[in-house]
């Protein structure tokens, strides 16, 4: 019995209204993502990848079309309910990390749990566990500017996991990292996927996309290619 999709988009468009010009960042996107899927989104700069991710993550609303997130029609949600979805259903990982500079790694990871109303001891324990899971047990008291790029991104991943969301949305998470740090981040995401989380990963790099089960290619706001490369990595290794 197939589980219902966690993400179900039909005919999604997003139009930005600039000075006199309309920019159609997304047009007529249909996208279904099943629980536990690992989708890579590729495409040239400006093709609408980030816009798509913002809509998936309820940071932004589509101009038209219907979008169900975990069975719920997002268009019907008010601002607080959207915030609630961002809080509990999805976790964001950004290219620029987006950590709060004044907070320590531990405090950054605790932040989503504060908004979720968790007790302070519980928070501390979970944040510590999460930082250990990303290999930063010795960096909990560091502020972002005392961490390397790769370490910052690992804090961001720990933060994305704070409220145990079903979906992780990563927008070019390796874009600001050297290849070694990037590889560590990708393997962290793979680990999350293997433990059942749904991952949507935006990337420029083909070797990063390879880790996904499916690759969507966007161009000018449209999906122009979709490959279901199940076990792509294995296949590639076989061809070597």
């Amino acid at each position, binding site marked *: 019995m197939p589980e219902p999709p966690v993400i179900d988009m039909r005919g999604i468009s997003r139009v930005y209204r600039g000075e006199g010009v309309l920019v159609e960042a997304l047009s007529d996107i249909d996208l279904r993502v099943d629980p536990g899927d690992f989708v890579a989104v590729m495409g040239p700069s400006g093709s609408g990848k980030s816009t798509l991710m913002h809509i998936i993550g309820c940071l932004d609303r589509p101009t038209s079309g219907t979008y169900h997130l975990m069975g719920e029609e997002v268009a019907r949600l008010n*601002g*607080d309910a959207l915030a609630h979805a*961002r809080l*509990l259903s999805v976790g964001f990982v950004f290219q620029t990390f987006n950590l709060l500079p004044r*907070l320590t790694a531990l405090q950054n990871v605790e932040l989503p749990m504060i*908004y979720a109303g968790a007790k302070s001891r519980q928070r501390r324990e979970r944040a510590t566990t999460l930082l250990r899971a990303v290999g930063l047990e010795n960096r909990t008291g560091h502020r972002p500017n005392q961490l390397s790029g790769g370490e910052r991104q690992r804090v961001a991943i720990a933060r994305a996991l704070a409220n145990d969301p079903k979906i992780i949305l990563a927008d070019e998470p390796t874009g600001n990292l050297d290849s070694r740090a990037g590889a560590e981040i990708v393997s962290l995401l793979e680990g999350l996927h293997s433990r059942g989380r749904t991952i949507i990963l935006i990337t420029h790099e083909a070797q990063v996309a390879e880790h996904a089960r499916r690759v969507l290619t966007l161009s000018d706001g449209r999906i122009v290619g979709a490959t279901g490369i199940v076990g792509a990595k294995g296949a590639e290794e076989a061809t070597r």
Partner: protein
Amino acid sequence: MNLVESTWMALTALAANKGRSALTMLGVIIGVGAVIALVSTGKGAQMEVLSSLERMGTNLVFAIKALDVPAAQPLTMDDAGAVARLPYVETVVPQIGGFMKVTYQAESSTSNVFGTTPEYSWVHNADVALGRFITQADEDTAARVAVVGLQTADDLGTRNLLGRNIYISGLPFTVVGLLEPRGSTGFLNRDQMVLIPLSTAISRVTGDDSIYYLSARVTERDRIPDVQRSMGTLLRDRHRIGPDDQDDFLLMKQTDLQDMMGLVTNVFTALAGGIAAISLLVGGIGIMNIMLVSVTERTREIGIRKAIGARRRDILAQFLVESIILSLFGGILGIGFGVLLAWAAESVLRFHIGVTPSAVALAFAVSVGIGVFFGVYPAWRAGSQDPIDALRYE
């Protein structure tokens, strides 16, 4: 997110900008301090004036020549005698004289020099600290003796005046007594005063018996209005004032004076408090200004918080708590500042200035109110940021 979390977040944010937070608070500190100090000083002045009026003697009705009636006849000793014979009038104390230059050796003082009777002492609570008061014998012999107030003595350079000669209108007077400190009524500094026998004043100083100031002491408090009325009728009759003409004298009960001075000091307090409140308002605007700057500076932070699930009200609360903390701490420090100012004012003005708990409570409440009032708009701006725009903000 609960209040403890919001408060902690706000404190962290404020601590990150210590200098700016302190300067912003300074506005509130000065405002609250000024309100507390000025209102307390006003209240202190009021208490001082009212108690000084009380000390001036009780159950009194005063009469003076009306200053706004051109043809007014002065009150005379005959008028005083007639008033003294009215029912319920216990005694009458006339004062003859006015501002004059008093000299002692090289020093001089412009003081109220009044010729008056020995009764003045008990009717007006004027006790001597040193020496004696004017006696009936002085009065009978028109003796050139004087009882000197403390301020006048200080003006003349020494309190050691007993037995010395001071000069009034070129005439030497022997100082026989020094008055205890009596304070000011608001009209009259009763320490800057020289009292001489009535008969001496009439014969040697003023040359006539025009009374500057007449006090009638009433036997019972309840009879004060009656006495005021009968004095009015009597004096109109004696001055032959027609039925349609206005009084050429002014009668005042002591309670009228107290009411009037109470009103005057209240108005003063309200005015001073109002001016101080403007500085508090300016402090509040300072908070709003800084909070707006802070919201703009922290747009990206707001975006990040929203992206990880903060609701509008979480952001709003965070910024509102920050402005409340600024104004609350400003208020608390301002209360301390106000107490210091009041204390300084007390040592300069030399009357008791108490900072009342109600003034402190009010200042406290007002500063919280200012934090809320001037914090709401910036906090609302913060809470209403679009998450994407905020995240993209450079």
